[in-house]
């Protein structure tokens, strides 16, 4: 994007995020939404749209969406109704999707996003419930489109932001925040690559200083956080170019093409569906009582912002460390488990922030896929704390634990890394080093105390890393002072 464009135009962005809920069963059918099962095996007559079937509201769906609403400072409607969104498509078995239209269950909320240079409050227009459609697969059969209805009827919530976002970076930060919240609430796994979190973006540009919004386009098919950022960036650039070259932005839906890194037209406004929304007659209104609301408030877990502050206070963590460790709820949980088991939060945070995070990054996995348990890591910390191993051995053992079921102590013994703290052996070693290095001894005595490192190094070398460096230091100091 040229600097000139930046100076003259600003973007207006609103996001619609769909989060697939981790309820035990589908939104309106008593069957578990299990992903990765053979196509069309997780279905009931209802999911197939058989005549005579009726939807039944999954109670968890209502609880989950209220949790999300409360966590994002929304008002919760005492009464809200379901609506049918009508359109024909082969992966939509009933010919309509059960959704909410003019009475969303949660509305008028906000959340705060953090960017490097500033923080910003983003308004939430609404959060509503709906069911997912099935999946159309266009690339497996050369002549036919295949339809898998396992996903049909899975519960979704749609979170609609106000057009408060101004840059792709803000959009990215907003999405990250949404992901963090749904994960903390344990209502969605937040995985965008697998489609459990999906995002559409409404993008327009306007000359700086103008209040009126420009014509917007809707972007779809962005299946990662980075793609959302890239697609919005591309679209802003495209719209500015268009206007600068005398053209006009046309209201349309555009698809992000990952392979070409560009957006392309999917349908124009004229082709837009008339969804003929009307109240779903098969489902009574959702009534949220004060009792239910209070009950759900009680169930709300500690969210990232609060947890971050607590970590800083309780464990003396730096703000940066606290932010990093609480970014992912499960990482923070993991850390707390290690800290508690080891009874040493400092060592636990060091280990998690440096070693564990390094492995997660290297292997591109998340903490749930990390195969060393907090208990085993706590044991490793204890070994070090008890001076049975030194720092470099700790590192070696940690790496060995990654593909090994053995305990830290077993590994230390096997790899011969248990520190020698035997006074007799160490005295002999220290005496030998003193005898062999008269020059250094003289200079040390003359005040060059930095040479301590040299003596300890010699001891480590001679003991093949097993000497207890603390004891060696003490002995050298005693003998030469």
């Amino acid at each position, binding site marked *: 994007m040229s600097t000139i464009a930046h100076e003259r135009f600003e973007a207006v962005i609103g996001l619609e995020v769909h989060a697939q809920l981790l309820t035990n069963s589908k939104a309106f059918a008593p069957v578990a939404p299990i992903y990765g099962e053979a196509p069309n095996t997780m279905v009931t*007559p209802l999911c*197939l*749209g*058989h*005549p*005579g*079937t*009726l*939807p*039944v*509201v999954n109670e968890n769906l209502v609880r989950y969406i209220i949790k999300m609403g409360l966590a994002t400072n929304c008002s919760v409607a005492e009464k809200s109704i379901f609506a*049918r969104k*009508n359109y*024909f498509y*082969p992966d939509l*078995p*009933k*010919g*309509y999707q059960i959704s909410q239209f003019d009475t969303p269950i949660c509305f008028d909320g906000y959340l705060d996003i953090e960017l490097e240079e500033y923080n910003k409050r983003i308004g939430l227009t609404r959060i509503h419930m709906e069911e997912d459609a099935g999946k159309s697969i266009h690339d497996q059969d050369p002549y036919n489109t295949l*339809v898998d209805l396992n996903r049909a009827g899975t519960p979704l919530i749609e979170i609609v932001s106000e057009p408060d976002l101004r840059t792709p970076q803000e959009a990215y930060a907003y999405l990250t925040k949404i992901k963090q919240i749904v994960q903390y609430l344990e209502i969605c796994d937040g995985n965008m690559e697998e489609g459990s979190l999906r995002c559409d973006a409404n993008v327009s540009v306007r000359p700086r200083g103008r209040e009126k919004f420009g014509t917007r386009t809707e972007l779809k098919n962005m299946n990662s956080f980075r793609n959302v950022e890239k697609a919005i960036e591309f679209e802003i650039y495209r719209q500015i170019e268009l206007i600068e070259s005398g053209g006009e932005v046309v209201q349309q839906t555009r698809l992000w093409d990952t392979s070409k890194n560009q957006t392309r037209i999917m349908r124009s406004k004229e082709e837009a569906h*008339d969804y*003929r*929304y*009307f109240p779903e*007659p*098969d*489902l*009574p209104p959702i009534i949220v009582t004060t009792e239910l609301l209070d009950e759900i408030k009680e169930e709300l877990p500690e969210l990232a912002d609060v947890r971050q502050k607590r970590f800083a206070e309780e464990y003396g963590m730096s703000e940066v460390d606290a932010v990093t460790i609480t970014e992912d709820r499960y990482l923070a949980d993991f850390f707390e488990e290690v800290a508690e088991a080891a009874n040493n939060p400092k060592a636990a945070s060091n280990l998690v922030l440096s070693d564990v995070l390094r492995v997660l990054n290297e292997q591109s996995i998340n903490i749930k896929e990390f195969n060393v348990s907090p208990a085993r890591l706590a044991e490793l910390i204890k070994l070090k704390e008890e001076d049975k191993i030194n720092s470099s051995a700790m590192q070696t053992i940690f790496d060995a634990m990654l593909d090994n079921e053995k305990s830290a102590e077993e590994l230390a013994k096997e790899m011969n890394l248990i520190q020698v703290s035997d006074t007799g052996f160490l005295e002999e070693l220290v005496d030998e080093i003193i005898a062999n290095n008269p020059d250094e001894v003289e200079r040390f005595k003359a005040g060059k105390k930095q040479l301590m490192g040299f003596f300890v190094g010699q001891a480590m070398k001679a003991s093949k890393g097993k000497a207890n460096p603390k004891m060696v230091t003490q002995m050298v100091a005693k003998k030469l002072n």
Partner: protein
Amino acid sequence: MIPNTIQDARAQILAGNLKLTDLVEHYYTNIDASNEEINAFVYLNKEDALKQAQEIQKKADAGNHGPLMGAVMGIKDVICENGKPTTCASEMLGDFHSVYDATVIERLKAADAIIVGRVNMDEFAMGSTNEYSRYGAARNPHDTTKVTGGSSGGSAAAVAANMANTTLGSDTGGSIRQPASYCGVVGIKPTYGRVSRFGLVAFASSFDSIGPLAHSVEDAAAVLQAIAGFDERDNTSAQLEVPDFVAAAQNPKKDIKIGVPEEFFGEGLDEGVKAIVEANIKKLEENGAEIVPIHLPHTKYGLATYYILATAEASSNLARFDGIRYGHRADKNAVLDELKAEEAEIKARLKAASDEEKPKIETELEKLDSALTRLYKKSRTEGFGPEVKRRIMLGTYVLSAGYYDAYYGKAQRVRRLIQNDFKEAFKQVDVIVSPTAPTTAFDIGSEINDPLQMYLNDAYTISANLAGICGISVPAGTHENGLPVGIQFLGDVFQEEKIINAGRLVELLR
């Protein structure tokens, strides 16, 4: 002599004078004799029925039979039965078999009712004559040149012609009561939410009710008793205790308050029908009932309101019949050939066109259906009959952007006014009385080309569905034209005992 009612049949079975298998055989004999002419049954399952009869007979002999032992039933082809065809009398579902039992079927089976087969109806329960059926019209047993009424025409005719002692129908705007009236049988439309709709193929979800048709009020009450009650598979079913309907039929109170709404006795009502209904009211009064003139001022908006709301829901409910997963699908090659031919034709015109004409023709080319869209259109055009298409189009129109408020929104508000009319009325009276239909059964073919005239047949029944209240039609006498006339009682929500009570009084006074 084999008795016509469940009640009598069951007494004879328990007395050892009749075997259940013989009762079932009797009905199949009647079906064999009359069905070709009446066209009530569209599917029979004799082997199963006889096997069931043997098993239930054993239970009866041991004294541990269910409450509907002796019920030999036909099921309207719109209610799902596992493994059996459920066609809704539509080409769209011509070869469709349901894969599960509706809640009402489960409950009938649990109560030891025997199902002999499935009965005719108007396609997807849309119609008032049973003429819109893939199986052809059912015929009125009292005069086979006349319609049965509809949409539960087969249900009413089967009972009237003694092909079954009871049947299930469905009532969205009068579809149980009106054919019951035309065929001279009893029909109950329960309160919305009293009977689970799970397994009833939806026409208009906020109007549809399943109910019984029978020879007597007590039989109808017994069947209703068996199928009523909360069902967790239907979120609109009511979590209420079910009162003893059979007791209400057996010991009717005489001193009931009956409201007579002026609006139901006005223009359009046949004089003969009116006279019979009024004679019945008079007898009820002489017998101890208090007659109270009442008003239901919004009645005149009922038909219009109904045909907006019910068709809106229908247009959405019938969207699932798209030929993708089941049901009729147009021939794929025919679709592709058709599109290819159209494309060639437009291109040829484009070639010959002047520059001026070209843009318009190019737009035509652009707007040509995708193969998928054309497949939908063709499958649905071929699969649905004329009345169903008419209602889908009407419903689609009233829900369209820009029209919603003027039609659907307004109709919803009027629906509430009609509900309030009844709420007010039931503060004063136990039941409301009226003719069930403005006329007796008319000639087959006489109204099929005049949908508006046909819709008027539902004028007295439709408001019960709009208000969600219950209604019963009971035979009230014979018109001078020789055809049966029905009298209707409407009751407040979940007050079926009261309409059963009133219906039974009419029976006793006949």
